[in-house]
């Protein structure tokens, strides 16, 4: 027997999505300006690139380089700033047939709050926010806010006061114990957790005797980090009860199933978009196919259904 009907509808907080396949921040622009062959209506949601208060031109090149089964990037949060975003991009979302989540970044708590408030102040079709806490924070000596449970809790507590929309916190993997940060942001009222952002890495060009990326350290993404991401998603799922959106090295439907089994309720596709920006649609198909072949009616039957050995 093979099922003919499978159900991919996905709920996070009070928001319903067509399916649990989202695109990751920084890998799908603002959801606009994509090649014509990409059908975004097939996606569960699009996460915009990180929006900051002022526009940022980003870092000098080189900004990206390939590594074994992965890539390093240090784009430097290049983005048009919240004002241009509200003026030029938000109006486009009226005609978009998928859910939009705005990723927000900042160098100070204040910056996050201002960006979120400004977007809240206009009526829009945005369903929620993903808070990128992996940015260097000037108030804390350039340290990433997201490595400190208390600071993360404080930021999310403040942001929670400003919005009733979906508030998702995106965690950095560059910490000793990601569960602590997950607990702290759950306690602060986050609706969900995204994990993981990129892993700190570095490349060296032995001919030039320079780093392969201008900023020396950069973010590692792609299949190389999938084992790291799976471990972190699994750990977080043992700690918190809010949904987790799994990210890291997903390139096909089987990878999605891995993340679901590890405890994710939805997933995001990052680096794989660069190879084929339509990979989301393909992955939705593969996921449907998998459910049919395994006679699973609703994809959520897979979430956390891992049988540990011990």
């Amino acid at each position: 027997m093979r099922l003919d009907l499978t159900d991919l509808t996905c709920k996070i907080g009070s928001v319903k999505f067509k399916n649990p396949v989202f695109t990751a921040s920084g890998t799908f622009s603002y959801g606009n300006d994509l090649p014509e062959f990409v059908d975004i209506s097939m996606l569960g949601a699009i996460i915009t690139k990180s929006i900051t208060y002022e526009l940022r031109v980003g870092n000098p090149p080189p900004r990206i380089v390939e590594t074994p089964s992965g890539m390093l990037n240090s784009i430097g949060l290049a983005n048009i700033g919240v004002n241009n975003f509200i003026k030029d991009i938000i109006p486009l979302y009226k005609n978009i047939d998928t859910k939009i989540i705005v990723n927000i970044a900042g160098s100070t708590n204040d910056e996050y709050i201002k960006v979120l408030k400004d977007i809240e102040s206009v009526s829009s079709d945005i369903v929620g926010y993903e808070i990128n806490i992996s940015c260097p924070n000037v108030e804390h000596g350039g340290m990433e806010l997201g490595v400190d449970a208390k600071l993360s809790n404080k930021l999310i507590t403040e942001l929670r006061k400003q919005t009733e929309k979906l508030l998702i916190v995106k965690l950095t993997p560059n910490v000793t114990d990601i569960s602590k940060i997950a607990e702290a942001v759950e306690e602060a009222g986050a609706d969900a957790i995204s994990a993981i952002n990129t892993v700190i890495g570095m490349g060296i060009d032995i001919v030039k005797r320079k780093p392969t990326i201008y900023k020396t350290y950069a973010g590692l993404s792609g299949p190389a980090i999938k084992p790291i991401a799976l471990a972190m998603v699994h750990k977080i799922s043992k700690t918190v009860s809010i949904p987790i959106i799994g990210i890291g090295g997903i390139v096909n439907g089987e990878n999605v199933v891995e993340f679901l089994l590890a405890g994710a309720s939805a997933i995001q596709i990052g680096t794989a978009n660069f190879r084929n920006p339509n990979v989301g649609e393909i992955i939705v198909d593969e996921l449907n196919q998998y459910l049919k072949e395994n006679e699973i009616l609703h994809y959520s039957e897979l979430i956390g259904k891992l049988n540990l050995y011990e």
Partner: protein
Amino acid sequence: MIIDKSEIIENIQIADGIWQMVFKSSGIADRYLGAGQFVSILVDDNWEHPIRRPMSIADVKDNKVSIIYKVFGSVTQSLTQLKSEDYIDVLGPLGNTFNVDYNLIYPILIGGGIGLSPILNLSKSLAQKGIGVTTIIGAKTSNEHFLQHNPNNNMFLCTDDGTVGINGTVIEALNIVLKDIKNPKIFACGPEPMLFSIQKMLDKKSIPGQFSVESCMACGMGICQGCAIPNNNNGYHLVCKAGPVFETNEVRFD
């Protein structure tokens, strides 16, 4: 822009470490706008190399698209293994084109290293329109050349070691060529140091030009922001989208 599984028609070595590949893609050929545009290729399903490789379009004839590539690392190495009737995954056409306002200027085309591909393409398409051009192609040594040095036909080769054509860089050749030309405009593609030298020279002599520039690309279609190159306004252009062709004074190499 499309992604096409294209059938390879030919894949042959044309000079020392330089290969030419022709593949069939009406989808890309139909959307092709002109010299300067590029495609981005995936050799196989292997995720050891997650990222496509950009390659300038060297020629489009009917539904056949050519690229000329140099063997650098593992991906271009495995590219040489493909044979006719194999398939290759190609994204394109990408980027903008050279814009030759040929009524007003005399085009001097300069290609260095792997930058010769869009230059040959431009040269051919101008020749088809009956427009006279002078072309300068530079390489380290004669083995890397697959063209003929032919000054009478306005085709100048140069080599760093003097083994063929003019002994020296394209700058030396350009200096020679420029002597006899009125209203020149330069169209160049090649390694960054070459473009930087040409830029300084053109700047001094107030000669206009266009460069096709390179940069590390992850997506080739404006979504990763990886391919930035400094503009002259404290910001950056995205080479894959605003370029790869820029007016010489729109980009900074310093």
